[in-house]
């Protein structure tokens, strides 16, 4: 258990960083409407690492997008660190993402025209108290790839640049949507190690989506979704290191 967890119990701050209640999301395309979320209740505690599992189409990405301020729920409420995001405007959501959120996606989404370091600087420049880009790259084990362009990096390396970019601004919360989805097992573990390290050292709250049940073992808590609802919550007895798992 990370020691930081109990430290967070300071005055005025609750244990809960993010909380969604009764979140619904309905997509209407033409005549068909899809209920991607049907009333999800979710709360994320400060510093915890949560893994979200579920079949394809169960609504994981939809939930993550709403929590991350990329999309809006059709119904329900959403709070982050005492702020009500339920009715936040576009600009407020932009500010929320800019200040508090980091993202890692399946497809890296690096800017092709910038080097690894510059991709990280892109975010640190607009952050309040970021770490140095080199430092962030060091943290994910890429201290020697600073001047490479994305096209000159492997998939795993690109994904670690994405992680570095996401954590460099010291976000309060990091959302990862299938961060290892495009990677082989060995490379995937290196990315998870980077995430695990960030969670332990910076006590960044993390929500990681994966199809991979095995990855649940590195989490504090595992949620399972089905048909737009969270149907199960488990807490592993012992949180494993990424190097201790495989798939």
């Amino acid at each position: 258990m990370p020691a930081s967890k109990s430290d967070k119990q300071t005055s005025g701050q609750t244990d809960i960083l993010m909380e969604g209640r009764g979140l619904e999301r309905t997509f209407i395309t033409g005549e068909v409407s899809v209920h991607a979320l049907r009333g999800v209740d979710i709360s994320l505690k400060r510093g915890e690492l949560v893994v979200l599992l579920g079949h394809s189409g169960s609504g994981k990405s939809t939930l993550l997008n709403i929590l991350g301020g990329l999309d809006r729920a059709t119904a329900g409420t959403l709070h982050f660190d005492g702020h009500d995001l339920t009715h936040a405007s576009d600009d407020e959501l932009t500010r929320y993402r800019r200040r508090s959120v980091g993202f890692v996606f399946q497809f890296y989404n690096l800017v092709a025209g910038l080097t690894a370091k510059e991709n990280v600087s892109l975010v640190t420049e607009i952050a309040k108290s970021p770490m140095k880009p080199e430092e962030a790259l060091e943290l994910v084990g890429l201290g020697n790839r600073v001047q490479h362009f994305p096209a000159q990096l492997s998939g795993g390396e690109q994904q670690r640049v994405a992680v570095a970019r996401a954590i460099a601004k010291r976000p309060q919360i990091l959302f990862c949507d299938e961060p290892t989805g495009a990677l082989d097992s060995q490379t995937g573990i290196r990315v998870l190690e980077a995430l695990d390290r960030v969670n332990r050292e910076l006590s960044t709250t993390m929500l990681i989506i994966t199809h991979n049940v095995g990855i649940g073992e590195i989490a504090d808590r595992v949620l399972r979704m089905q048909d737009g609802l969270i149907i199960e919550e488990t807490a592993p007895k012992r949180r494993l290191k990424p190097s201790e798992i495989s798939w």
Partner: protein
Amino acid sequence: MKGLSPLDIKLLRDIWHMRGQAIAVGIIVACGVAIMVMALGTLSTLSASRDAYYERYRFADVFTSVRRAPESAAARLRAIDGVQTIETRIVRLVILRIPDVEEPANAQIVSLPDTGESILNRIVLFSGRYPETRSPDEIIISNAFAEANGLQTGDAIEAVMNGRLRALTIVGIGDSPEFIYALGPGSLMPDDRLFGIFWMRRQALEAAFDLDGAFNSVSLTVAPGTDTALVIDQVDDVLAPYGGTGAIDRSDQLSNAFVESEMNQLKTMARIIPAVFLAVSAVLIHSILNRLIQTERQQIGLFKAFGYSRREITWHYLKFAIAITAGGVLAGFALGFILQNLITQLYAETFRIPDLTWRIDSFALFASALAALGSAIAGSMSAALGAAKLSPAEAMQPAPPVNYHQGWLRYILQMRWLDEPTRLILRHLFRFPARTAANLFGIAAAVALLVSTLFSFDAIDTIMEQMFFRTNAHDAAITFFEGRNDTALSELSRLPGVMSAEGVRDIPASLEAGHRSERVGITGLPADAQLRRILSADGRYVDIPSTGIVLSSQLADMLHVTTGDLVTAHFLDATRPVVDLPVTAVVDEFVGTPAFMDLQTMNALLDQPPTISGAYLKLDPLAQAAFEESVIERPGIAGVSLRAAAIDSFEETLQETIYIMMSIYAVIGGAIAAGVVYNAARISLTERGRELASLRVLGFTHHEVGYILLGELALVALVGIPIGCIGGIALAHLIATAMATELYRIPVVVNPSTLGVAAMIVLFSSTIAALFVVRRVRSLDLIAVLKTRE
């Protein structure tokens, strides 16, 4: 959709998908086509109407004037080989008194035969009738003059004829092909209020001007296939003893020369300006198509795998370009018709040609469509061929990742103060040099087009400044009927309000140098002339040397001579001396192709006592009315022109034509810039939408993402504008050279403010276009980009 192949359906979808860009290109094509349709259409309308007018109302081929020739000389003229029809006339300038018009007005009175209608230069009668044979005071007046002064048949008008004030009765209103463009004495622009044409029976004129049994003007037609120059020589020989001033053909006939020069301007416009538009549209089509093909690589691979041939693929993408252009061509036709109609109406006020109304000119349509489609194909060919050349296997792979290099750019990019978005802009700019160059070209072309058209204002200012303030310091110019001696000048000086007076003598002459020869008027000015001065090319006043001849730069160019060379002058008046004169200076004049001499030297050469044909006067502004009152009663005065009235009519005429033309250019110059910027921004957006959406996910605001999208274009504009200014000045030189005629030339003067206005128009329209695209940044789908691999 029966009958459309799947490829054609795809084509239509592509166009629909890219409709914004298609419209941007279409607008630019439409502007180019519209100008071409307008210029060529107006040209053909003008030339067809004029030719029909000339034909139907028998415009003469050769014109000449004499001091006084007996009617018997006409028989000898008629006997000249090649002369078909000949008509002798009396033509005189008179001063008018029009109620409610203060300034002195002039009319040119032209004789009609004693009975019936003229044989040549016949009148098209709009209302009323011909004067009675015996009536001494019935006249037909020109339509423009009647309109400008609100005169109708039955009205009376007073004219000073040979010193006597006569009341003339208007019995008809008409026009003749001889006076399509009617310019009064000493005028630069037609002033219909102050100058008109009157037709009167010959008998009445003979009586009024003591020209019984004599004539002072001849017009004639030559038989087809005859060398007009030979006829002119013989006419001059016959009329020399009677004070002939040298015959001219149509090209030197003032009215016709102005029509020709206007047609020359239209021709130049049709050639140069649409070319700029079509070049820009070709470049735009090229970049749009390149981008489209890049996104459709995999489809192309698929088509080729299905067995579509190279030719079919090439044709498919050419069709895309042709379809966009065809839309622009059709819109250009419509716009062109509107502009042509507008310009034709303007022309109809200046050029008095009956039935001058716009009509559809199929050649203009054909030529402009051909030019537009040709440039579209030229612009799209390389991209389309490139698509056809892709091997199917290669094409079906995703495009190789854009490979950025550090290269020399590294040194710039390492600069600390650059932020990442700016680095991104710079890298992108240099990553696609061809596209950057294309955008640069587009912006520069828009600026250049604006500079090369808006400079007309500066040119006109320069002409006015020089003509009305620097070289002509007089307030009034007087023309005598015939040469007078010095006493005429002192008489003028004694008129109320005259502060000073200087004599001037205009002599028709033919100047020869080598095998070149030009018919000109030589102006004799007093040695210390203050009221009519001449300027060197660098703007300094030149004193007229006591010997030799001073040529305007155009005339020097036409004769291929320069200071120090000899020219042979055949004077066409008085004793008709032929003398060799050294060119003592070459001076700057914008109107006509004048030559100057010292007045005393001129009189000495002509072996005459001091003679003048006119005078320049400086007036007391407070006594101007008294002067105008008294001058028209002086005998011997054919014409009076006031500088103030000349300036007014100059400005008024220009306001009507130039200002309309210039606004048209300002709008379409802005359209080019907007089209270029819109297109570039759209291409950038489709190409980098994914990247930009990712940045939005990371918390970048709309503005920051907009900056990355447009910063590149802003930089291009910053560099493109000065390039466009330089290009515009070059284009202005080209246009000015192409439009220069013997009647006038356009100085290439470009004020900094004109460059500023051009830049502002381009920046303004670019900004509007850019904002249109930036709006789309707001609707970038943030989630979609996360779902898919590039």
